[in-house]
């Protein structure tokens, strides 16, 4: 099946290059919400209307209008099994909402998986662009270009005063959610994180876990995004996010330097201990593996560990997710089996690197 291509590998090709500030920033993501004129939003759309939205939107990318982004492929959600859906969510290629609740849902992906265009999610159209490291401006430009391609052939629901109309009032206006995924272990360890996150909230940004709304921050990875979509230009939103993230990077870097200067033995012990546990444990829960992989990531940046590479760590972050484990080691498994297979995967990946 064609869709399997997107669920075979844990790491999307776009993630293989680091991008700027990659020691702290994992990725930058833009999401633009758009709706078609004259059709009810997916929430109220009948099966036929959902089909019509799909029929209006899907052909736009069938002619490969953006050759520099590679070929695009349409994947219909109801043609996927549950496991493939789960893996696509774990790779951030589709939202949990599209995977579980959509009618007539589909996603258009390009070859390196840096562009994901969701159809019939909460809105008719959700354009998502992912870039490694801190590249919010680049991600916005690409998303905006894809938006223009759609706008040339379909009529958007747009209002003079309110801007792009969306199903949820929290997205109206620009329809833009710009977010940056950051790894902040030193700020967590030195207990400065809450103070910083509070400050972030006061400037119109919000912090979530890595799997979006309502998800918990695991492995010291946080997703920082704009809250406001109305009354600010896209440029202002991106500028604001970029400015705040740059400051957070600075704080994290200072905190890392301080940790290394003030308690080098303790931090080395923590990192090597995590390496040891990941390399030899027989049972490994997701939360623990995320935390220990975070320690390894810090260890690599501080020069305490030579291996594994950041790319291997990014891959492990996805591979240790429940869906991907099932994909690799065979379908149905209990949570204990999953913890066992996760430990096996980690042992085999990290053990060979000694």
């Amino acid at each position, binding site marked *: 099946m064609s869709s399997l291509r997107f669920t075979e590998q844990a790491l999307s090709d776009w993630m293989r290059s680091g991008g700027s500030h990659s020691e702290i920033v994992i990725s930058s993501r833009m999401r633009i919400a758009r709706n078609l004129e004259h059709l009810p939003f997916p929430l109220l759309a009948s099966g036929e209307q959902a089909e019509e939205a799909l029929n209006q939107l899907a052909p736009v990318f069938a002619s490969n209008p953006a050759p520099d982004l590679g070929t695009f492929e349409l994947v219909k959600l109801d043609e996927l099994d549950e496991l493939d859906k789960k893996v696509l969510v774990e790779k951030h290629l589709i939202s949990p909402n599209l995977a579980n609740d959509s009618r007539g849902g589909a996603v258009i992906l390009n070859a390196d998986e840096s562009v994901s265009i969701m159809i019939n999610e909460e809105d008719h159209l959700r354009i998502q662009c992912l870039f490694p490291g801190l590249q919010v401006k680049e991600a916005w430009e690409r998303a905006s270009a894809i938006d*223009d391609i759609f706008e040339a052939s379909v009529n958007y629901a*747009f209002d003079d005063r*309110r*801007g792009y*109309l969306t199903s949820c009032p929290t997205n109206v206006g620009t329809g833009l959610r710009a977010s940056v995924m950051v790894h902040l272990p030193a700020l967590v360890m030195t207990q400065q994180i809450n103070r910083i996150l509070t400050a972030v909230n006061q400037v119109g940004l919000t912090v979530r876990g890595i799997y979006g709304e309502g998800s918990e921050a695991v492995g010291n990875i946080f997703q920082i995004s704009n809250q406001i979509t109305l009354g600010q230009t896209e440029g202002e939103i991106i500028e604001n996010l970029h400015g705040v993230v740059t400051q957070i990077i600075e704080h994290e870097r200072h905190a890392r330097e301080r940790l290394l200067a003030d308690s080098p033995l303790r931090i080395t012990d923590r990192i090597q201990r995590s390496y040891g546990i990941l390399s030899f444990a027989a049972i490994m829960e997701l939360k623990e593996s995320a935390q220990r992989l975070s320690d390894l990531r810090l260890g690599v940046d501080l020069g305490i560990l030579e291996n594994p590479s950041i790319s291997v760590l990014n891959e492990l972050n996805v591979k240790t997710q429940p869906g991907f484990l099932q994909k690799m080691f065979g379908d149905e498994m209990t949570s204990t089996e999953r913890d066992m297979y996760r430990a096996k995967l980690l042992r085999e990946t990290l053990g060979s690197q000694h």
Partner: protein
Amino acid sequence: MLCQECGVRPATLHFTKIVNGEKTEFHICESCAREKGEMIPGTAGGFSIHSLLSGLLDLEGAGKGKATAATNVQGLHCEKCGMTYSQFSKLGRFGCSSCYKYFDNALDPLFRRVHGSTAHVGKLPKRAGAQIVFKRRIDELKQEMQQSIAEEEFETAAELRDQIRKLEKDMAQ
């Protein structure tokens, strides 16, 4: 205690907002609450923002039964998709793009609360946007013209009127 907003009427509604563990309290009167678009507990169909934006507002435990007659927004419904305002306030989602038009009266306070603003200033769609640029310019000129008339500068007003006519003609093409 006086209302924090107007400083005139006594505060009868007391909210505690907890965002990411940070607690803020505010005390306002009913009429300011309504203006701000806050849900007033005890009024049927009052807008409940907490069902919309989890964590933004925690209204549980606020003084119940103190509010009086609800506003007229609950009677609104969208003639295109049939969604009523009270359904909208429960679901936290619009049913179609026309809901924005039919619920317009109620949206300013909501958007001000959520976004701190009520009007879009960002990107315009290229095709539909060209018309909007014209329209915005015409609206601006009309305002200037009214201003000129009010100040009895009729010559300026006449010039503005001609500019408006020209733009309207261009727009029609």
